[in-house]
């Protein structure tokens, strides 16, 4: 058998087994949950583009809507190409140089280019499938709005396939060249920083553009005109131009031109694939060898070498052991601590949003609106904490990885381990959430009652969110994952997000009625009735019970499940 096919066989067998296995009873639930979420997102993209395209069509001037639609399409392709390139670089770096099974594969009597080809095929599929699937609703919306026939839909496939292959081949070539100079591990760290940097710049830039002005019809129209005048990269040598031209010709019904652009893309894809395999003959194995000899030996600039006994010397035993290890590991892992920048940007944008709120222009009373927003802000801040907990708290147990045996063999209960993890994450997230709430309430100039209510509610809700993260992370750990930080996309991670959202929603709903009455009474200087006071007291007591239960129950569940799991 062809060595490339042989090398791909384990992956195919594993995929087939995963698809048809009936051993795991939760698998079908997981599949349904992920399927529904994915479908919802897919339909959301479709609805958005369909709405935008029909809006363009409705703009009065002759042919202006079509120009805008084509302009939008010409923006879509470079965006997809950038996504495919970045995803391709990350995936091929991992597949070609950082996979755990590389030692085994490179010991096999097959040529490096066979290994490269097999890995590159895997990498192409892994890095492209999601972009390709979520590109479909964009093109489908064009097909629907412009009433296209089967040729247009077939052309989506013909244009996307070489487009993905070109991006993947270019990524693999770039990775092979860079790894010759820079070891794979270091390259990955740089990529992480680069990714975060690009995201931060895009996120902050998008927010500062103030997209809420789109709601204003005058501003919206001028923005549409501005968009029409934008220049997108359209060099005849860019793959995104070939794909765009192909789709544009398909929309116009020019089959000859459509096929010409597809032929250009396919020939480029085949040539680049050949060039990548050719380069792999000399570059791939050298890069693999270099990556294996470049492990970090010393802790680096963030060494925290003296943390152990000085500020935390008052702690003893397992608490100190787990705390010090957790903090040191966090600050020595660039994939972990670099996320703090994201947190900073998130907070800055969050506060900025409240600063630019046009409360004075609202048709309802400003003081009423301020207090309503402050009340809803409790939920919003709690959702932000859920997002942060999903990234930092939920993977805390999975981060033990294969070394979990140390915890299991140590004379310390799982209860202690989970409680230590709980108390490690509680102070920073609690402080952060209280800071957000107090700062936004001050920006909104809310009443003292609303300030006290927000501060106390968040004080009770955040421990519940963290306990949910730790408890469910312990109940559904993934010690085998190469990147446990991504475990939030697993079944347990989604369950955490859903339960956390339900918990926050329940707290907000329980408090909404009595708080509304109190705020209304306060604004109209009316005295509260005893029924209203009792309603508030009882609802607040229910919230307290709910928050206590949200701390105890998930932690107990996590302790019970993790105690049964062998390392």
């Amino acid at each position, binding site marked *: 058998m062809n060595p490339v096919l042989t090398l791909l066989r384990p992956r195919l067998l594993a995929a087939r087994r995963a698809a048809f296995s009936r051993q795991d009873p939760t698998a079908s639930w997981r599949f349904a949950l992920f399927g529904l979420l994915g479908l919802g997102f897919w339909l959301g993209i479709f609805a958005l583009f369909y709405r935008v395209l029909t809006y363009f069509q409705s703009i009065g001037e002759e042919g202006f809507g079509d120009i805008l639609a084509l302009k939008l399409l010409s923006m879509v392709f470079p965006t997809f190409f950038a996504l495919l390139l970045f995803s391709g670089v990350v995936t091929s770096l991992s597949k070609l140089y950082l996979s755990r099974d590389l030692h085994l594969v490179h010991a096999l009597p097959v040529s490096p280019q066979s290994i490269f080809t097999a890995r590159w095929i895997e990498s192409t599929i892994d890095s492209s499938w999601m972009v390709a699937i979520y590109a479909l609703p964009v093109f489908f919306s064009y097909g629907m709005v412009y009433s296209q026939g089967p040729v247009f839909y077939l052309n989506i496939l013909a244009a996307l396939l070489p487009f993905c292959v070109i991006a993947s081949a270019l990524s693999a070539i770039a990775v092979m060249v860079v790894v010759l100079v820079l070891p794979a591990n270091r390259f990955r760290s740089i990529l992480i920083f680069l990714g975060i940097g690009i995201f931060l710049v895009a996120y902050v830039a998008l927010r500062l553009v103030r997209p809420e002005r789109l709601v204003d019809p005058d501003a919206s129209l001028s923005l549409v005109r501005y968009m029409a005048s934008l220049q997108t990269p359209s060099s005849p040598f860019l793959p995104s131009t070939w794909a765009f031209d192909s789709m544009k010709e398909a929309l116009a019904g020019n089959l000859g031109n459509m096929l010409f652009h597809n032929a250009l893309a396919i020939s480029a894809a085949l040539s680049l694939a050949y060039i990548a395999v050719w380069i792999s003959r000399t570059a791939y194995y050298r890069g693999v060898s270099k990556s294996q000899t470049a492990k970090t030996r010393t802790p680096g600039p963030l060494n925290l070498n003296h943390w*152990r006994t000085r500020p935390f010397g008052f702690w003893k035993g397992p608490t100190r*052991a787990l705390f010090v290890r957790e903090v040191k590991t966090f600050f020595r892992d660039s994939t972990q601590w670099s996320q703090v920048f994201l947190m900073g940007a998130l907070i800055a944008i969050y506060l900025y949003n409240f600063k630019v709120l046009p409360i004075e222009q609202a048709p309802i009373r400003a003081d009423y609106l301020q207090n309503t927003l402050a009340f809803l802000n409790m939920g919003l801040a709690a959702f932000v904490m859920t997002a942060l907990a999903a990234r930092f708290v939920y993977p805390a147990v999975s981060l033990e990885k294969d070394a979990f045996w140390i915890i299991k063999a140590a004379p310390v209960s799982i209860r202690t381990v989970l409680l230590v993890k709980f108390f490690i994450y509680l102070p920073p997230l609690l402080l952060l959430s209280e800071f957000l709430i107090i700062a936004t309430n001050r920006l909104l100039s809310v009443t003292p009652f609303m300030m006290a209510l927000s501060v106390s509610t968040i004080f009770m809700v955040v421990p519940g969110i963290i306990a949910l993260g730790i408890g469910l992370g312990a109940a559904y750990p993934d010690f085998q994952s190469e990147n446990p930080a991504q475990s939030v996309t697993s079944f347990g991670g989604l369950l955490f997000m859903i339960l956390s959202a339900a918990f926050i929603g329940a707290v907000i709903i329980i408090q909404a009625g009595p708080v509304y009455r109190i705020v209304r009474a306060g604004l109209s200087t009316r005295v509260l009735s005893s029924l209203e006071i009792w309603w508030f007291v009882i609802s607040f007591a229910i919230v307290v019970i709910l928050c206590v239960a949200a701390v105890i129950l998930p932690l107990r569940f996590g302790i019970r499940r993790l105690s049964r799991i062998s390392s």
Partner: protein
Amino acid sequence: MIRLESVNKRYGHVHAVKDLSLEIQKGEVFGFIGPNGAGKTTTIRMLGGLLIPTSGKIFIDGKDMAKEPEKAKKIIGFIPDRPFLYDKITGMEFLRFMGDMYGVDDKIFPDKANGLLKMFSLNEWGNELIASYSHGMKQRIIMCSALLHDPQLIVVDEPMVGLDPRGIRLVKDLIRELAAKGTTVFLSTHTLEVAQDLCHRIGIINRGALIALGNTSDLKKAALVEEGELEAVFLRLTQEQPEAA
């Protein structure tokens, strides 16, 4: 020191350890040998508190592993066969971590840790990240950590895997020395020579069941082998029997 009462472990349909009962005295070096997949590592992991038996009881120095796991684990030094560790901390930091976990006094820790690092030839590597350690070095740092709290019982799975000849000699001498001081050692190994050299008694496990127990002469008698080494006994006792018709 160790008492196992009718211990069973099942993984779904697989009966990995069958009705295992065993008693090991203080200061005894006990070897556990058997073919691949016989149930050695499963037994070792149950002894170390990493796995819960499906049924049966495990007592360590009279403490029930199911009821008082922390007390039982506190007197064990556990050394697994595969040295998975925390990559982002240094060897010395790992020892500090283990010292805190097992309640080693802060005052005696530095001398103790440095002494162990020196003994296992890791003194020059103490301040380097574990990520940069070789397999054998990781195995040695685990051994350092297992000895840090002066355990009364050492449970070790394949002690010689990954060690160089000097390391093997060191570990052999160490086990003898510890046993002479009253420490109990429960070791599983595929190296029959190690078992023969070190162990006061040997248990042979096959397909989850303990099929022979005793010192080398007892085992020879059980296997009806008069001459030769432990290897002949092992091969005789663990040879595949034809399935009954």
